[in-house]
């Protein structure tokens, strides 16, 4: 079994997972080293194995009438050490702990030092007793847009998104296309003006521009 499998098996119980992340946040280097050994910086890998499904112990079903307490969204106000201060779009203030076990995505799997003030953010983790969120995963500036392709340039694709123009930047070595159910390829030549697409990308804060990670389209 892979190290990721080990990580999630050991935390099938949400109480174990909460204790683990709590220790990673509070326990200093030993806990962080442990987290590094068990975790992954790639979100896809981190989610490849089953997560907490509470095989024993009390079931903690979320209250569907309220926001998910183990999730946060907003924009980064400050970065201090391993703590993010995030202003939620609903004006909630989130304090998010990042550990060596936290997977970070910003256009591609990356490291926490790429987080910047002003970045948009989604975070999933475990809400600790002090109200902070210990993050399993951070997605910085990620957008998922259903668009129509309005023009295609050498390194830029213009999209129409709900009547607004979005400029998509092709990033060499990163941008990929998925045509129907084929594997991702770097060849974007099958994209067609006038057709629709789904775009996963990284927003450039305070602009209408995104760097393209994956474009899903019909061939």
């Amino acid at each position, binding site marked *: 079994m892979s190290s990721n499998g080990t990580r999630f098996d050991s935390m099938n119980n949400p109480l174990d997972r909460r204790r683990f992340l709590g220790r990673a946040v509070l326990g200093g280097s030993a806990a962080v080293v442990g987290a590094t050994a068990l975790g992954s910086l790639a*979100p896809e890998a981190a989610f490849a194995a089953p997560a907490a499904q509470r095989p024993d112990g009390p079931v903690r079903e979320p209250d569907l009438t309220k926001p998910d307490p183990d999730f*946060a969204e907003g924009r980064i106000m400050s970065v201090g050490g391993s703590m993010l201060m995030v202003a939620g779009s609903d004006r909630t203030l989130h304090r998010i702990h990042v550990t060596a076990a936290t997977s970070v995505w910003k256009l591609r799997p990356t490291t926490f030092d790429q987080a910047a003030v002003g970045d*948009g953010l989604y975070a*999933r983790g475990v809400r600790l007793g002090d109200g902070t969120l210990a993050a399993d995963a951070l997605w910085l500036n990620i*957008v*998922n*847009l259903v668009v129509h392709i309005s023009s295609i340039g050498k390194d830029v694709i213009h999209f129409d998104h709900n009547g607004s123009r979005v400029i998509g930047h092709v990033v060499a070595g990163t941008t990929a296309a998925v045509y*129907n159910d084929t594997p991702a390829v770097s060849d974007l030549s099958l994209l067609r003006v006038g057709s629709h697409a789904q775009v996963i990308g990284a927003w450039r804060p305070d602009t209408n521009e995104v760097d393209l990670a994956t474009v899903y389209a019909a061939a």
Partner: protein
Amino acid sequence: MPSEIDAPTYTETTWFCCGTAWGPCGSTGRGACGTCNSGSLQCAWPNTSDACFDITRPDRCGDTALRRTCGHTFYITSRCNGNRVTVRIADCGPQTDLWCGERTCCSGLCATNRLMDLTPAAFSRIGSLSTGRLPVRVSSEGF
């Protein structure tokens, strides 16, 4: 009008943002039910009303999608890792007929056509947002 069979369905899911939000999501609003919020465990379903169905048209892909209205509870299981999330309908979508025949697989376990959109909070309980699409099992009766 689509179908009568109320059995678990295998379908693709992706994610969408709604409610107050940053970036290109900032203009999305609260969705067809008026309650949609990216941080809540919610979903969009392509047959919440006649008007919704006229837009999404899952029937054009040969798919059946029972009428399910705002607040209906679905139980979603990822075919990639078995992770689960419970969600309630908060919006109309996805536009299924844009993606007829599209298929997503994990280790040979596949799903075809998009009948389900999840909020980021819901999607991130079962997979990485950077994945974009997942094959899932959808049930109204529990996991």
